[in-house]
């Protein structure tokens, strides 16, 4: 099952490569790649956050087995998203990059989201999990913050054009997923499945 999910999760990348080879990445390929990888990073973030509610509802720990891989795929697409921006928008000029990060709130939020994903990716191994013990779970709660900064990044990007339909859907999904973490709602979810 894990191997199937792994290959499914690579499909968005395969698609970009295929479209690139067939010269089909639209008139603005860089924008296309940046937006596509940003969207997929967000989709995998949602999927990652969906595993715990699914476990509670289904009363099955099976879901948790996929959580790490989904989270790492979110990081993977975020890396491409960030890397393309750093390379083709900022030309690897770190000074210019930081100026942009400080000056533009939507970039600030994207940058924070990316930076916060790094420690989570680095400590995703079993070894780190054992080593960190209880602190591991605390550290990985940063994902809730990332959900907020990532959606703000997307929201503010779209706000100028008032084009908020798609981002509202993602915001609603993430809000719902985060609500599942509220102890009271958590209890209801797991109770329902126990009876």
């Amino acid at each position: 099952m894990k191997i199937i999910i792994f290959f499914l999760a690579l499909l968005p990348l395969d698609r970009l490569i295929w479209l690139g080879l067939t010269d089909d990445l639209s008139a603005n390929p860089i924008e296309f790649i940046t937006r596509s990888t940003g969207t997929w990073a967000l989709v995998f973030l949602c999927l990652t956050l969906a595993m715990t509610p699914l476990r509670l509802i289904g009363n099955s720990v099976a879901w948790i087995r996929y959580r790490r891989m989904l989270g790492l795929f979110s990081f993977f697409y975020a890396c491409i998203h960030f890397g393309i921006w750093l390379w083709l928008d900022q030309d690897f000029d770190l000074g210019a990059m930081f100026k942009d990060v400080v000056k533009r709130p939507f970039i600030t939020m994207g940058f924070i989201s990316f930076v916060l994903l790094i420690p989570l990716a680095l400590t995703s191994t079993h070894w780190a999990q054992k080593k960190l013990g209880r602190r591991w779970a605390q550290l990985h709660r940063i994902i809730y913050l990332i959900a907020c900064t990532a959606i703000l990044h997307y929201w503010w990007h779209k706000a100028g054009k008032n084009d908020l339909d798609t981002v509202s859907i993602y915001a609603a999904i993430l809000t719902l997923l985060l609500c599942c973490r509220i102890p009271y709602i958590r209890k209801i979810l797991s109770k329902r499945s126990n009876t």
Partner: protein
Amino acid sequence: KLVATPNPAFMTKDELTSYKYVTTYNNFYEFGTDKSDPAAYAHTLQTRPWTVSIEGLVKKPVTLDIDALLKLAPMEERIYRMRCVEGWSMVIPWDGYSLSKLLNYVQPLGSAKYVEFISLADKKQMPGLGDNIIDWPYREGLRLDEAMNPLTLLTFGLYGEMLPKQNGAPVRIVVPWKYGFKSAKSIVKIRLTEEMPKTSWGRIAPREYGFYSNVNPLVDHPRWSQATERRIGDSKGIFAPKIKTEMFNGYGDQVASMYAGMDLKKLY
């Protein structure tokens, strides 16, 4: 087909953007917010019959049929750079004539200071009007001297063809030293006014889209830098570096004098 004579005064060394990209990568919110939407959905636009009324502070207000407009002055081909406020650009051979020819025909009154352009807004033809992103119809405007500048083109075609619907058929404005959204598409009304018109994007986000919106690498958009631009279909390939954006999109010789003494950082 549209017969137009190339005007040697408006040629450029820049490589032309392909017809395919010019006609498939468009911002035309009346047909959707995605850049592929106009090419996909603009076929429902009825470009005939079509009239444009010119009204307001003019001696001879008039409503002209599109065929009369096409014959009002000799059709010229001009190659202009087009710089979108989003940070990309194209090089497009347009067909049309200077808007000043039409304005002189209706004779602006001495009190006229601005020109407002109003685009078609018809729900039956334009599926994008369902979104209330913009308070339809789309409105744009220029100061009268900008509208009279020979560069400002009343445009009927591109690449020697009648304007494709997604590019603003049957008649649009092209103002090459300003960001692309200043160039209103599918125009039905031109109004001369004393007051500065309220433009559509200016109403939505005044901090982001000023009335002048001259291409200016020194004035950043609040959400991104305007110092560089990505040339669509750059022959150096998809990973080609961005190119430097020029003041007034490189048309400073023809237009800079109109802004003498103005602080373009404030009046962006």
